[in-house]
């Protein structure tokens, strides 16, 4: 079952008017899947019925929810929880034993609107083993618009509802009108920069931790392989790579090995590959 033409057209016009994002024909599935939760919440039998009522009543709150559902990238605080638990319980404590300068370098390679780098910093603050350490955080994204949002660090009510524990919200954010703004001291710790993963990386030194989550899925195999190979060059030999839950290096770039870390797993450069990085 996919959304009807009439409903799709209505949503498409609404989203275009409100966000300048154009939902091309063929995106019916996306619209359907993003709106199902709203339709069900409102007690409608399907998305078509929900949109039909929306088109008649034009309730501003519902319209805003629809626009947000379609324009908010699939990103939430501490997305999937497990990688952040692994950081706190395993990765940071391991690095604490070997990084004598009390500094950890982290790269969030597809930072989108900033939730990921900020979540990493909040996790670092909650890790006693590295209390008081400097976290040198680079956050990059292809989209300048996303980087601008990330840098601003302002999130809507709907966005702070996603995956952010209430205690963390009140500790690291303050109200800014209807939005919430990340604590400026935390925001100042992140260096934001535009970067296209498909191009050669600029000089940026070696990182102890790289987050490359839910981005490889958008590339073909050859590109995935090339990106993973180049990530090896900017990762410390004993560094840690996080991928999305649905992504893996197996069969793409076998210089990596998957190591369990709590309920999730992290990727490390195989021992025999560490000395002869191309």
């Amino acid at each position, binding site marked *: 079952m996919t959304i009807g033409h009439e409903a799709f057209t209505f949503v498409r016009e609404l989203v275009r008017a409100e966000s300048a994002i154009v939902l091309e024909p063929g995106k019916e599935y996306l619209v359907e899947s993003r709106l199902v*939760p*709203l339709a069900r*919440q409102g007690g409608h039998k399907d998305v078509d019925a929900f949109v039909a009522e929306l088109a008649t009543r034009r309730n501003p709150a519902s319209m805003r929810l629809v626009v947000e559902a379609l324009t908010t990238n*699939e990103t939430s605080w501490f997305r999937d929880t497990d990688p952040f638990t692994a950081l706190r319980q395993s990765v940071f404590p391991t690095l604490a034993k070997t990084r004598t300068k009390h500094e950890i370098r982290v790269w969030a390679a597809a930072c989108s609107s900033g939730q990921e780098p900020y979540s990493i910093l909040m996790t670092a603050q909650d890790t006693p083993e590295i209390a008081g350490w400097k976290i040198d955080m680079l956050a990059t994204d292809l989209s300048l618009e996303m980087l601008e949002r990330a840098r601003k660090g302002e999130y809507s*009510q*709907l966005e702070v*509802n996603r995956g952010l524990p209430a205690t963390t919200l*009140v500790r690291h954010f303050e109200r800014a009108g209807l939005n919430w703004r990340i604590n400026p001291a935390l925001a100042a710790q992140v260096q934001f920069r535009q970067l296209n993963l498909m191009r050669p990386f600029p000089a940026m030194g070696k990182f102890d931790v790289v987050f490359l989550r839910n981005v490889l899925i958008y590339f073909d195999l050859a590109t995935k392989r090339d990106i993973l190979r180049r990530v090896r060059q900017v990762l410390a030999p004993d560094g840690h790579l996080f991928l999305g839950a649905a992504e893996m290096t197996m069969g793409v770039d076998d210089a990596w090995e998957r190591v369990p870390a709590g309920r999730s797993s992290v990727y490390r450069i195989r021992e025999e590959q560490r000395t002869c990085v191309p």
Partner: protein
Amino acid sequence: MRALIVDDSRAMRRIVGRILADAGFETVEAGDGQEALDVLASLDGDLPVLACVDWNMPVMDGLTFITQVRKQVQWRSITLMMVTTESEQDRIVRALAAGAHEYLIKPFTGDALVEKLDLLGLLPTPVGDHS
């Protein structure tokens, strides 16, 4: 697993109830804080693991309800989540100080509620990757 929904809006109880049912909960409802205390007392040993509590309600508001629940040793196992339109920072701080474990601000999507359940360790299976 049982969950208690405390909200004076029947529509909101239905919305929250449906999301919780999808997440595997059996739900009971109350229209205000006092009614919710009565429901808890009547449930005796078979307590809910979770209560989703609105703030503004007639008779007894959600903050008072949470404070009352926290005073009772036998109800200590219940996880309390405020679900409300109250979105000021000091409100959230007050609710947490009174004993709420989580705080969800209306309006919210079903995913947001499910993610809160995940944070609280109340999902049978962890939230998967949606990509």
